[in-house]
């Protein structure tokens, strides 16, 4: 993973009191590469958002470290931290909450420019804002003076993306960016993310519980369970040939109009969930490579 822009190296994070710990991340390692999207899927509470927050430095890891361009960020100086800030941006789940209802769209895009490109004069700044809006396929003249509540969900999410782009980041972390959007606009936002990734060579971490969209946008996928990454690798490979029992369970639970509901196979799978829960608490064996670029952390027997 030498060419990873950003990497988590064996990071662990535990919440709660000693008598009742919540392992939100257990020895999590992965890297984000320029021009590639990595999807992180898993059940709710499995630690996906924790991983994102670790990257955003909202949480400090209990163990392990965050590597930025190969150097650990733990003891980085202020300048390096600022550079890191400018390089890693986030797109939030709730498009309404992500924008301050009291500020115009213009303000939302102006602030990052002022902070990260202080040399721009006001004309240049306006030009930059217009460019950003055009890039996310919105009409600058129409939108700049508007307030968030005057926009649709899809438009708002595009503004969030534009704001993230305003600082010229190399990495974008998107935590369930489309789960609050209507089906019909969801795809537009996903396509936009894909375009940005391709055009700007961004590294994208796409967090979701909707595996179908993960398949749609991501080259690589990781399945997380109880704070652990249990299976990861090439998206097609993982989805067509799931190895870990949890991945299988997850896949069979995903609603799929092509499969009839009364499929009894799921009930059998369900019976395994207790087993999985129990097993996941035990010490974990080493990872195993299934095929090229497809790994699992097998369940202890």
């Amino acid at each position, binding site marked *: 993973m030498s060419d990873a822009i950003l990497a988590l190296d064996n990071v662990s994070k535990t919440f709660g009191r000693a008598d009742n710990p919540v392992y939100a991340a257990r020895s999590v390692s992965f890297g984000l590469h320029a021009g590639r999207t990595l999807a992180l899927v898993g059940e709710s509470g499995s630690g996906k958002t924790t991983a994102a927050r670790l990257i955003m430095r909202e949480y400090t890891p209990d163990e392990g470290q965050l590597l930025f361009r190969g150097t650990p960020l733990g003891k980085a100086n202020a300048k390096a931290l600022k550079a890191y800030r400018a390089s890693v941006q986030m797109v939030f789940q709730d498009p309404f909450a992500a924008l301050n209802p009291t500020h115009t769209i213009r303000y939302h895009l102006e602030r990052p420019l002022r902070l990260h490109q202080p040399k721009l004069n006001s004309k240049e700044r306006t030009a930059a804002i217009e460019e950003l809006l055009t890039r996310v*396929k919105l009409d600058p003249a129409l939108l700049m003076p508007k307030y968030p509540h005057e926009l649709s969900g899809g438009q708002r999410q595009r503004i969030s993306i534009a704001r993230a782009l305003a600082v010229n980041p190399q990495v974008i972390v998107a935590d369930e960016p489309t789960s609050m959007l*209507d089906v*019909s606009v969801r*795809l537009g936002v996903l396509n936009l993310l894909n375009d940005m990734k391709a055009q700007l060579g961004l590294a994208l971490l796409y967090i979701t519980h909707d*595996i179908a969209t993960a398949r749609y946008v991501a080259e690589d996928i990781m399945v997380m369970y109880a704070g652990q990454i249990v299976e990861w690798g090439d998206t097609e490979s993982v989805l*067509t040939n799931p190895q870990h029992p949890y991945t299988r369970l997850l896949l069979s639970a995903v609603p799929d*109009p092509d499969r009839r509901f009364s499929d009894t196979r799921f009930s059998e799978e369900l019976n395994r969930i207790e087993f999985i829960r129990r097993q996941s608490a035990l010490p974990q064996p080493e990872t195993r490579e299934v095929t090229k670029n497809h790994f699992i952390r097998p369940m202890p027997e």
Partner: protein
Amino acid sequence: MTDPVLSIRNLNIDYIGAEKDFHAVKDVSFDIAPGEFFGLAGESGCGKSTIAFAVSRLHRPPALIRKGSQILVGGRDVLSLTDDELRRFRWREVAMVFQSAMNSLNPVLTIETQFYDVLKAHTRISRAEARTRAAELLKLVDISPDRLSSYPHQCSGGMRQRIVIAICLALNPKLLIMDEPTTALDVVVQREILQRIDVLRKELGFSVLFITHDLGLMVQVSDRIGIMLEGELVEVNDAQTIYRTPQHAYTKRLWASMPKLHGEQIREGAQS
């Protein structure tokens, strides 16, 4: 074909505004047959919940069911019920699971009391009998009867969801309305719950009005589906038919924007 459990005709619902009214439901008509699993899909804000509320007449001002609308449940005209009849009608005929189960249990009453409330409102039953009945119902949804003395906050989300379903079944209703019952849950739990509903439906023979915006799920579980767009019901048909050969342009667009888990990936979907 037997008489439908639910029959909606020309349903018009407005939200009265200070100056202008908002037509939330426009001239909607559809039927649900006994034992049928009927899905109602559409974007957020298209009026799905408004219809669901109207069936049990749960609306509060400024909602207004316009005259000329008709809602028949088991042949009875719901819109002409008196207050007392209405009270007895609710839950006995139509029970409802709300958008988020997390919040549909009263936080300050024990689970037992919430069962008891229903049973006492509709039947003559002693506290002890109610408890036995509640325990039975909980068993149906795989929850230990110990939970009866717990408060909602002491149960996990999935558990609460199942408890609500158990409460719904308390009076053997003819129709169960589920308004996006699983949005807050992850796919595994969601699947588990729907599967259980499906089994119970077959066992007990009630019909289901299932509201969601997850189209994949809808096709998977429903017998028939209605697609709504801005207050209008644009297409109603058999689940598989609507999935494989959609008629309305909007339905087509919906399918087109749905990424698939298996097989051929959709190409450049519709742009908003």
